[in-house]
């Protein structure tokens, strides 16, 4: 177990482990034996390893759902629901600003400067960013584009959606937690039968 010490520490701290955040750890976690070892170790702490459907990201959940655990989960869920719209809007904004033809996925790189430059000259993007930055989730007080963008990216880094490989260089890599976010949305949509399509309409195919 000693070899997984740093990994366990990260997991216990609430980190999401994916191919981007820690490739070695992710590879270890994909092994059935390691999963069992870790679960066995975590049992007295009332924790167990959880992953999303396609096993692209791992994190810790409760082994037994005590009353306290439920309370904590409810609180967390409320936060997640609250953060859905700002996160999705950010995804959309980045996709449109950078002129990408598809949504961001794990492993994509975003250069902060490029994002700022493209937003600067476009009044509507500027306006949308402004609204987004002042959302409760990002909670920016600033009027300056540069500091708004920096704050947004810093908050996303804190929440584990982005990774900044070099602290002094302003570029970010999207982590596997984005996959988790998409899975959450898909789950809610399926559970609640929301009228939210994700397959192209027939005429779009023709």
């Amino acid at each position, binding site marked *: 177990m000693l070899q997984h010490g740093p990994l366990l520490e990260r997991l216990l701290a609430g980190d999401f482990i994916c191919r981007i955040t820690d490739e070695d750890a992710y590879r270890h976690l994909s092994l059935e034996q390691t999963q069992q070892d870790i679960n066995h170790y975590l049992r007295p702490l009332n924790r167990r390893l959880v992953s999303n459907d396609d096993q692209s990201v791992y994190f810790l959940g409760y082994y037994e759902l005590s009353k306290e655990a439920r309370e904590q989960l409810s609180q967390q869920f409320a936060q997640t629901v609250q953060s859905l719209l700002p996160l999705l809007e950010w995804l*959309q904004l980045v996709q449109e600003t950078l002129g990408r033809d*598809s949504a961001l996925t794990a492993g994509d790189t975003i250069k902060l400067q490029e994002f700022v430059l493209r937003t600067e000259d476009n009044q509507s993007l500027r306006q949308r960013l402004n609204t987004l930055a002042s959302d409760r989730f990002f909670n920016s007080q600033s009027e300056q584009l540069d500091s708004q963008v920096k704050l947004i990216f810093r908050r996303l880094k804190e929440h584990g959606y982005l990774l900044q490989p070099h602290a002094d260089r302003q570029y970010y890599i999207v982590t596997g937690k984005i996959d988790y976010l998409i899975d959450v949305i898909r789950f809610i949509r399926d559970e609640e039968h929301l009228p939210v399509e994700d397959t192209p309409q027939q005429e779009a195919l023709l």
Partner: protein
Amino acid sequence: MAPLDLTPGIASNLFNTGAERLALLGKYHKQLMQGYLDGYVDETAFSEGALKKLIAARILWRPDEQQPLALRPLVSELIASMVADENRRQINADVAEKLEQIRNRVQAYRDAQYKGDYAVAELQLQRLTEHVHDLSGQFEEAIDSLWHRLNSDFGFVSSLDDKIRENERAQKQLRRLLDGLDLLDFTELIELSEGNNHLRKLLVSQLQSQLSSHHSSLLEVQKRLVELLAKFRQQQSRSLLISNMVAFLRQHPKYQPADYPNRSELPDLFNQACAIRPQAAIALDKASERQILAELVRALPRQVAVTLSDTPSASFSELLQDEEIAARQLALKTDVENFYLRVIDRGGSLSALEYLTEQQLPWDSEIWLYQILAEYQALPVDEKQMFALANEEVKANYYNELMLIQDINITLQGYVNA
């Protein structure tokens, strides 16, 4: 193409015409390339003679009376293949026709040999070799084009929908190529080459090894195309999901999903435990580690002890050696003491500066205030509690929080309480 007679008599004529016309391509390379990009050629860029020559050389043509001059499809195709322009590159998947030609050539070659006409047989064998290479080259070109498209992630079209369409088109081409490969029947080729070493080498050993390597390449490409298409579709559905969900949440700002965390069957996605941060401290119970710990302690940066001089407030007058200054200092001290006594006598609040002017004392107001504070600080704790100091302060500067004391009001605490 115009049918060309292959009799040896005009072979040199053929050579000259061909060389001349190929030179035309080089001579007008810029205009022709522009024509390739625009889809038509700018007739004003050529002289009338040049245009005639280019049309005669079947490099340019006018598809319709009303249409401008354009490159012949074969020339466009040549350029597309040379620059690997995947938008325009064509894949020729027609194998049946080539096979037919190979059969015919083998027959002609055998007939010529039978007649003992070796010169003709040699020529036929050469044509046959060309056809065989052609067939193999056709697959090679197609595979090269497919790999090129794959490796560039279909980057030559911009939108995801176009990429998906291009990928589907490539998969169809690939299927036709594989069907074409199936048409090649090696037992037939073995029969065709029976009893002739040249033919066996050409049609069986060489062609077979080439085609089997093409076959495995094609299968690899197919696998990759299918994977890529799945990726494209996943990206597409993700983009759609995001934009549709945003639209939904905007329309329903108060939307609240069901309470999943309190369901009896908690979905794994929402089982996200709160963080535990493991802490550790130095343990002294292992004798073996003491040495290391001692070293760690020794390595700690040591704080240089700062010897603080005694608070100068109450006693600095005694430090001064100069008699005159000491006398002044003593006078100031006495005046301040008198001020405190006055406070006690009066019982109410007293302003330090008012007292100063009232008594017409010679002290600078700043020194006076300072000494009052110093005297106050020097009092024993229980006596200090008797007095309440209220500073009248003014901000020194707009930009920071530095406050300047302008005056001090002293109140006898006991009096107020009583």
